[in-house]
């Protein structure tokens, strides 16, 4: 059962990819949906066994690599975290498999599409259950490849090609960082097993054995370096600010792919790594600060760009970016439970949003521009309901799924005393406001008012509810978007919950309030000791250390639970203000009071009347010009330099003149010259053999000859003087 959960998608991939053409389209769709459902059911059994019955399980297939100092095994570890991730992945994946049967039914490569989806799910399962970082990295790269294949699924489109290349190349940057981090961990701990190195680092925190190393000529703490390198990988995969540009462009792929990969599962793999490797991140205050800052800025900037996008999928993509920022800064505030909780919830409601947007796009004949929609509420009211549930859950409407996790994240940021966490809280609260605005904008532009698309779409489009195979799976997601947060709340972040007990998280919680630079702390203690000569400094550090570690997730949860109620209510108020604001501004043109609109402006002074912040709007509609900046100042100069140096100088220059190609050419020339000596006479062959042997043993022959001559001459001299003696 444990292995079925992981390997059923792989079996499905093999069957679909290699034998799908013999089975046919209908059989393949039935087959793959059934297999995925089977995997999901076995995952539910796992959920019962591992989470409720608390029986963690390690499955070891044996050694993969065995080097001198490091041994890597094929092993899968099923703890609570892994099973929760498996549950999320397989739920969304099953739904998307069923949905794709409807969405891609007219596509000629439907079978290949299904096989790629299954392969992706398999690699995601490996990520969730990997026991060591190397197997984790296998899954990490595998989902990258599957993401490339699926974005580029409609490969005849140039935009799809460009987006897929962009996605995989930017992900490679992150993967380089992750791989460097892996190497450093292996060099430090001589292992890559999560269970070993995650306990290794906190245990040796007070030892100066390998505290500081030089990296790029900078003296840096090893904890900081490893955590920052791992976070580089997280930035690539989870699309944090700086390496986020691939995620909105990845929306060129089919919509089920966007729902499965670029909203629900693959982009959260980075956050999953943060949660898995929590002990390392918790040991360095610098990296915590960086993670929190980047996460907060990602959530803020994602939301603000999402406000100005017109492509329906890009709005949701930027919303995903924003929510990923939430997860990452929750990890920065040591609120790993909240991050995981938000991960699960976000997967469900964001998949719902994407899939219902997919219905709209499918029915409007691949029209993605929100300005050419409108009025669809009367034609597809069920889709509207799904979209509404998803949006409300995203906003954090009370008692829907998103409410519980988002509020929890923001509360944890408030509960902390670190200034950076307060800053992150401020950005997060503003983001809540903007989230409400763009969700309402999406709903109103798509579903309210009059249809403003082209006549062709209206005449030939299928402006009605889609087939049952696309609607029924969404009902499951809608129910999950309403109830899942309430159901999981007590389990994941409830006071007294034992959920995180066997995972790596509770053992490492450092209280943010007391988090400080240890070196300066020791210096202070030393001055204290010199002044009073009373306390033994090392004992004091030990006591202090115990105090740090004893601040568990439970205490954090308690702190959050008994926070000031008014403070807890603040994000909710923000979201309601955003909801009201967005509705007022955007619904106004469609309401019966729309005649007031020009009259308001009549009372304004003239310069405000015609105030149109076009440049500001262009700035956000063009995604802050980050793509253009990367292109003009990083990619193109780099390309030119590498063409000049690597291609012209090294490849065409050095390697062709002195490299393997030069050897090959010179051998050909030499052979042409030696050909003339071959006359075809046997005695010449004979001579050449003899000459060759002579040349090879030339040294031996010379010395042997000299020795022989010496021996013979001595013998002759002896014979001269000993005539009487017989020679034989």
């Amino acid at each position, binding site marked *: 059962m444990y292995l079925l959960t992981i390997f059923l998608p792989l079996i499905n991939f093999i069957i679909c990819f290699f034998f799908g053409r013999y089975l046919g389209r209908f059989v393949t769709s039935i087959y793959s949906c059934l297999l995925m459902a089977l995997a999901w059911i076995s995952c539910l059994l796992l959920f019962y066994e591992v989470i409720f019955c608390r029986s963690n399980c390690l499955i070891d297939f044996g050694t993969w690599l065995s080097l001198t100092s490091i041994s890597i095994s094929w092993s899968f570890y099923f703890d609570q975290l892994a099973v929760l991730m498996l549950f999320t992945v397989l739920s969304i994946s099953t739904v998307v498999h069923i949905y794709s049967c409807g969405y891609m039914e007219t596509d000629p490569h439907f079978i290949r599409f299904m096989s790629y989806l299954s392969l992706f799910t398999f690699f995601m399962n490996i990520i969730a259950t990997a026991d060591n970082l190397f197997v984790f990295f296998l899954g990490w790269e595998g989902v990258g490849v599957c993401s490339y294949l699926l974005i580029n699924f409609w490969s005849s489109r140039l935009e799809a090609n460009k987006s897929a290349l962009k996605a995989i190349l930017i992900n490679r940057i992150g993967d380089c960082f992750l791989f460097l981090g892996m190497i450093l961990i292996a060099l430090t701990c001589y292992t890559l097993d999560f269970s070993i190195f995650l306990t290794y680092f906190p245990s040796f925190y007070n030892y100066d054995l390998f505290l500081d190393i030089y990296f790029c000529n900078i003296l840096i703490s090893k904890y900081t370096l490893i955590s920052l390198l791992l976070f580089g990988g997280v930035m690539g995969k989870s699309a944090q600010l700086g390496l986020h540009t691939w995620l909105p462009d990845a929306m060129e792929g089919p919509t089920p792919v966007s729902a499965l990969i670029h909203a629900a599962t693959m982009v959260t793999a980075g956050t999953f790594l943060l949660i898995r490797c929590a002990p390392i991140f918790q040991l360095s205050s610098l990296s915590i600060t960086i993670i929190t800052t980047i996460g907060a800025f990602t959530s803020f900037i994602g939301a603000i760009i999402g406000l100005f996008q017109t492509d329906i999928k890009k709005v949701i993509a930027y919303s995903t970016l924003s929510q990923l920022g939430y997860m990452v800064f929750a990890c920065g505030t040591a609120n790993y439970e909240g991050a995981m909780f938000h991960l699960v919830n976000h997967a469900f409601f964001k998949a719902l949003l994407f899939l219902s947007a997919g219905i709209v796009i499918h029915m409007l004949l691949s029209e993605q521009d929100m300005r050419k929609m409108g009025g669809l509420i009367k034609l597809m009211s069920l889709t509207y309901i799904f979209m509404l549930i998803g949006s409300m859950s995203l906003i954090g409407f009370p008692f829907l799924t998103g409410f519980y996790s988002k509020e929890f994240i923001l509360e944890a940021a408030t509960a902390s005393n670190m200034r950076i966490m307060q800053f992150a809280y401020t950005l997060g609260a503003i983001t809540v406001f903007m989230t409400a605005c763009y969700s309402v904008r999406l709903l109103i532009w798509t579903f309210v008012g009059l249809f403003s698309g082209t006549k062709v779409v209206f005449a030939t489009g299928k402006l009605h509810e889609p087939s049952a195979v696309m609607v029924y799976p969404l009902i499951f997601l809608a129910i999950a978007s309403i109830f899942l947060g309430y159901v999981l709340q007590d389990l994941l972040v409830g006071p007294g919950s034992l959920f995180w007990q066997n995972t790596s998280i509770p053992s490492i919680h450092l209280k943010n309030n007391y988090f400080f630079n240890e070196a300066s702390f020791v210096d202070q203690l030393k001055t204290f000791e010199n002044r009073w000569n009373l306390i033994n400094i090392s004992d004091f550090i030990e006591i202090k250390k115990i105090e740090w570690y004893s601040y568990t997730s439970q205490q954090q949860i308690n702190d959050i639970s008994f926070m000031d109620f008014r403070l807890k209510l603040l994000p909710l108020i923000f979201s309601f203000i955003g909801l009201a604001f967005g509705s007022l501004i955007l619904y106004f043109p469609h309401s019966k009071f729309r005649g007031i609109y020009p009259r308001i402006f009549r009372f304004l002074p003239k310069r405000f009347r015609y105030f149109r912040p076009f440049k500001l709007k262009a700035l956000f509609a063009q995604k802050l010009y980050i793509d253009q900046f990367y292109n003009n100042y990083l990619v193109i100069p780099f390309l030119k330099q590498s063409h000049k140096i690597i291609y012209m100088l090294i490849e065409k220059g050095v390697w062709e003149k002195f490299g393997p190609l030069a050897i090959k050419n010179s051998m050909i020339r030499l052979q042409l010259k030696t050909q003339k000596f071959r006359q*075809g*006479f*046997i*005695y010449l062959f*004979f*001579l050449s053999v*003899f000459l060759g042997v002579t040349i090879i043993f030339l040294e031996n022959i010379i010395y042997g000859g000299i020795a*022989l001559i010496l*021996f*013979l001459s001595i*013998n002759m001299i002896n014979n001269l003087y000993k005539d009487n003696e017989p*020679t*034989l």
Partner: protein
Amino acid sequence: MLILLNLTSIFIILFVIGFIIALLARKNIIIMLIALEIMLIASVIIFAITSLDFDSLWGQVIAIIVLTVAATETALGLALMVAYFKLREVIFVDFVSTIKG
């Protein structure tokens, strides 16, 4: 030791004779085969003598093996010669490379 040295000179003389014959007798394949035989015999002699000197039988064993190989090789060469003679009705091997395949 003296025996060894003297017979070594015999070996060298025999070997050089064989080599020169093989080099110069470029026309007659029978003479070439005989020259090869002479060279092999020269090496056999040195094996046999060293086995005497080192009190070991291995040199003589190898000598017998080499003789066998030489006989085989000569038989092969003669067979080739017969085949070549059937083709061209001569045994001069100057232009043996023209048969090619």
